[in-house]
């Protein structure tokens, strides 16, 4: 039974994420339409629900192009590299009580390092396309990841001081009941982490690698067909993974907040449902923010990263460290 579960769990979780992505694309299009007083896709299927299917069919039947003088190996490798790392990071996220593909005692470190690997796909794609604009997009992505990864890591340091562990399952278990969610202990870290997460996922207002206004699409300008679809998929999977990580670290993971889950299978199913609702709420905010804020200018982005988020998170670490030390000293008497 346990050996079977080794195969079933990844299939379940991966399948759920893969199903979520097309729904997310549709939600993005519908919500953006509502915000802009439009209607949005409503032709395919009942009120447009089958639109993602039509999109996939369209992409699959498009011609698979190789730009002349593109680096063939890197060009085919890049979309895979953009998609795999965020999917990989999902392995350590506890999607429900006792439900996790792989329980690592260094879960946080693994998730953060895996999600930041996604930038290689984007940089390689920009480089291999042999196009000035794509290269600029790739470069921007690298610079952005380097700047915001630091702020993200520093905000996590403060969080881990409070949590006292890097095992994601234990972090969730330490947050039972809404008042014990890390959000209320580390609000500054929460805001810094979330801002950095936007930047890591290349979502607006930080989507400078794409930046269709100045870079004609950035790193995926030269990509078509399923290779482009892989980039697209990678972006959305990264979004789902980041939201899941955010929920796990700050919003109590699968903890419903106001009551304790019942024992047994029903409780586990309920925990998955709670986790999903939280992730969906975060994803909605992702979309909502995208269609509200304009894009940062490149120097503003660097300014916010280096002169804003990093000093704030360093200060947060100092305050948290002093507070923890004093608290422990008082406890010991």
């Amino acid at each position, binding site marked *: 039974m346990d050996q079977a579960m080794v195969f079933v769990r990844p299939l379940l979780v991966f399948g759920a994420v893969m199903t979520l992505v097309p729904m997310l694309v549709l939600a993005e299009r519908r*919500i953006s339409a*509502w*915000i*802009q*007083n*439009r*209607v949005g896709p409503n032709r395919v299927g009942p009120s447009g629900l089958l639109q993602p299917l039509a999109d996939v069919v369209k992409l699959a039947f498009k011609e698979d192009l190789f730009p002349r003088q593109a680096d063939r190996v890197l060009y085919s490798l890049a979309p895979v590299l953009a998609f795999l790392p965020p999917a990989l990071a999902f392995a350590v996220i506890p999607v429900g009580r006792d439900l996790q593909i792989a329980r690592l005692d260094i879960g946080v470190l693994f998730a953060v390092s895996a999600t930041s690997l996604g930038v290689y796909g984007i940089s390689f794609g920009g480089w291999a396309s042999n196009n000035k604009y794509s290269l600029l997009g790739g470069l921007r992505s690298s610079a952005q990841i380097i700047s915001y990864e630091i702020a993200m890591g520093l905000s996590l340091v403060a969080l881990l001081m409070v949590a006292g562990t890097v095992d994601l399952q234990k972090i969730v278990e330490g947050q039972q009941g809404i008042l014990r969610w890390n959000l209320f202990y580390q609000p500054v870290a929460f*805001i810094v982490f979330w801002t950095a997460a936007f930047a890591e996922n290349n979502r607006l207002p930080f989507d400078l690698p794409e930046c269709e206004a100045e870079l004609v699409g950035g790193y995926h300008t030269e990509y078509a067909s399923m290779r482009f679809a892989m980039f697209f998929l990678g972006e959305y999977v990264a979004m789902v993974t980041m939201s899941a990580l955010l929920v796990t670290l700050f919003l109590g993971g699968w903890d419903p907040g106001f009551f304790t889950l019942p024992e047994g299978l029903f409780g586990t199913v309920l925990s998955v449902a709670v986790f999903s609702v939280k992730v969906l709420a975060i994803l909605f905010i992702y979309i*909502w*923010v995208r*269609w*509200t*804020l304009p894009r940062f200018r490149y120097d503003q982005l660097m300014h916010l990263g280096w002169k804003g988020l990093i000093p704030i998170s360093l200060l947060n670490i100092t305050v948290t460290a002093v507070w923890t030390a004093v608290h422990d000293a008082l406890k010991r008497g």
Partner: protein
Amino acid sequence: MAFLKSLAYRLYLPAVLKGLANTFSHIVKARGHKTFTIQYPEVKRPVRKGYRGEHRLKKDEQGREKCVACFMCQTICPSHCIRIVAEEAPWADRDKRPKVFEIDMLRCIYCGMCEEACPCDAIELTERFNVVATSRAEKIYDKEKLLSM
């Protein structure tokens, strides 16, 4: 106070929240936000009076074409899309009638000058605009087609 204000400005967050509140009111259609989209094939936009669509040739009360092949429209047409070949009319009230009357709809710019120039009120622009053709030849309308519209 001024310091707090500038801090709030530099933190971006108040402005961000204000923007988010605004877009959310759009999502829930609060404050009377209205969608202006017309669901095209089902709902058609009313054609305005004086709209210049595809041409037609008019007939008189005896069912004959009104056109007397005077070449006024062909002469004034700025895109040279009208081709007329005249022949002698079998009727007593006029000398000529068009043997060939062709309009190349792909060249036409729908300016309505032909309608303005016509002394006999024989050519007219209708309100038809959404006509599909699968070849170029189909878009060259001959006399029969123009008269039948």
